[in-house]
């Protein structure tokens, strides 16, 4: 006769409520694990979808994600000419927060060259960007409909397609526009600012008596051209030709002034070790604390449940029950509680993980490892109850 099952059957309400409570706690532990994995997936989403071998950024920076990086767009031609480079494409990144329907709307805008690479990895609805201006592909998480317009900078942009789950390292969903549009949004000044700048340059140049009017006009046009130029990018990404040596290509670009070629491995390290390491450690610590809390709760539940059964245990001992019957009852209850709570936690997270604001990645290994940990916690926690039960004297069954 299985005493553990019989006891649970009799006290089913209490057992179910306890298991649900514990299940919620384990659900939180699972979600922490999912967030932890999600941080990695988010951090690497753009890198993975770009599928570049080298990221050329501003010298002495860890750009373009961990640090600001600005390089001229036309460096792409020089990079393309490096032996071993198959293709190179400029990219621009910026985080944008606007008001949409009265609420803050935050996303990560990626500008890419329509003739290069680094654009949306897939189109799940609609089509990709075809026109040079004012079209946008939005990530599914932005919850924008095809045909919807959004004002960015000086212009309205129309959503023409939806891409999958691409996010920034901060977890903001990504949107793609052409590089020219992205540069306009990021660098182009509005008309009054341009007029002001031109006036200021004109006045400054006019104050130089030595300049002839024709020289002044020439200089004014040139300076305005430079200050109003938007042909700046955050990075130029390159793919190597088959058989090309990554180190050799990196060394060659490193010899140029003002640029730093970062391999994809280095970029991954910058993002995971630098940007999300603290968050990762915090989540890991939080998970460990939650597991300790779970262990304490299970131990407490099993201990109080054993205290409730002191008379039953004494009676069982008095009628000659073997210790294994009593130990089995406590251990099986503890394990059943842990396994049922794990199941509840798993169901809960399975039903809700897509609704979390940040990506939750449920990794099979993590879930299996947690199951093993829960079973181990149940076994260890039940020792407290078992120890108490083994100390119960049969004589305690006597008396009123």
């Amino acid at each position, binding site marked *: 006769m299985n005493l553990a099952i*019989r006891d649970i059957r009799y006290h089913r309400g209490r057992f179910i409520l306890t298991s649900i409570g514990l299940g919620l706690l384990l659900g939180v532990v699972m979600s922490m694990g999912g967030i932890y994995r999600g941080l990695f997936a988010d951090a690497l989403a753009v890198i993975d979808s770009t599928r570049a071998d080298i990221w050329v950024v501003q010298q002495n920076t860890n750009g373009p994600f961990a640090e600001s990086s600005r390089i001229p767009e036309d460096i792409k031609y020089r990079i393309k000419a490096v032996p071993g480079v198959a293709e190179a494409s400029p990219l621009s990144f910026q985080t944008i927060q606007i008001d949409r329907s009265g609420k803050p709307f935050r996303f990560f805008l990626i500008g890419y060259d329509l003739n290069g690479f680094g654009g949306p990895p897939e189109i799940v609805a609609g089509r990709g960007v075809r026109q040079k201006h004012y079209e946008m592909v939005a990530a599914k998480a932005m919850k924008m409909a095809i045909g919807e317009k959004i004002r960015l900078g000086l212009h309205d942009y129309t959503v023409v397609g939806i891409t999958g789950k691409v996010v920034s390292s901060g977890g903001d969903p990504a949107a793609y526009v052409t590089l020219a549009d992205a540069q306009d949004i990021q660098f182009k000044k509005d008309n009054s600012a341009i007029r002001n700048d031109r006036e200021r340059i004109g006045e400054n140049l006019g104050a130089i008596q030595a300049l002839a009017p024709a020289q002044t006009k020439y200089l004014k046009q040139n300076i305005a051209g430079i200050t109003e130029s938007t042909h700046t990018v955050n990075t130029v990404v390159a793919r190597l030709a088959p058989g090309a040596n990554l180190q050799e290509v990196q060394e060659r670009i490193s010899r140029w002034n003002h640029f730093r070629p970062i391999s994809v491995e280095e970029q991954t390290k910058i993002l995971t070790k630098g940007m999300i390491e603290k968050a990762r450690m915090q989540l890991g610590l939080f998970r460990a604390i939650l597991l300790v809390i779970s262990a304490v709760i299970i131990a407490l539940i099993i201990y109080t449940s054993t205290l409730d059964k002191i008379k*039953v245990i004494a009676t069982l001992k008095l009628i*000659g029950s073997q210790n294994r019957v009593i130990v089995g009852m406590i251990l099986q209850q503890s394990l059943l509680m842990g396994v049922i709570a794990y199941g509840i936690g798993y169901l809960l997270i399975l039903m809700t993980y897509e609704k979390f604001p940040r990506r939750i990645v449920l990794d099979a290994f993590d879930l299996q490892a947690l199951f093993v940990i829960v079973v181990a916690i149940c076994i260890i926690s039940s020792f407290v109850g078992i120890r108490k039960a083994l100390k119960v004297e049969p004589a305690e069954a006597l008396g009123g």
Partner: protein
Amino acid sequence: MYAIEIEKLTKVYGKGETAVTAIADATFQIKPGELVAILGPSGSGKTTLLTAIGLINEPTHGKVVIDGATVADGGWLPGIDLKRLRREKLGFIFQAHNLIPFLTALENVMIALEINHLSRSEAKSRATELLGALNLGHRLNNFPSALSGGEAQRVAIARALANKPKVILADEPTAALDTENGKNVMILLKKLALENHSAILVVTHDHRMVEGFDRIFHVDDGRITGEKNNSGGSVNHELG
């Protein structure tokens, strides 16, 4: 052969100046089929005597023999399996019936049989038969909380009898019952003692029930001070 034999049984709690003698030099024998009471006030040592005979409380001195087997002689004999002996030779009935609250009446009896290595089907059949014999056939699937005091005590008796023990030890079995239910329990115990050829030793201070016993030992301050035989005789013990 006696079902229970004790000789100069003594139990001392503590040591030195704080030592308390709970029972001193108790000697008696009980035959199979006999229903015997140990009567005495609270704190007189009745329960200590019962627990020593019930292989729960190790005697300090003296001898305990159950169904012809010596189990204690100045302490438990080395290598003796007390749990097995309790399972096979002894049955216990308690003041508050001590039924396991999360088992039905049937399962409460079955557990005693399954602990003694009977198969589930054998245990179920024997438990059903026993409960039927005690007029509890209609209460098999009821939990103890749904049984009356008298019914619960009869289930406890069925559990005590389940393994056909040679000795049944009862600790205040009628204390929690009204007079009528208490008398019914005593009639039942007497009937079972005769039918099963088991010795039944009852510890009680319930004077309402003394008529039903074959013999009564009076205990006071840890000593057996008298023995009354309901078939007539009375003996004064001068022990210790």
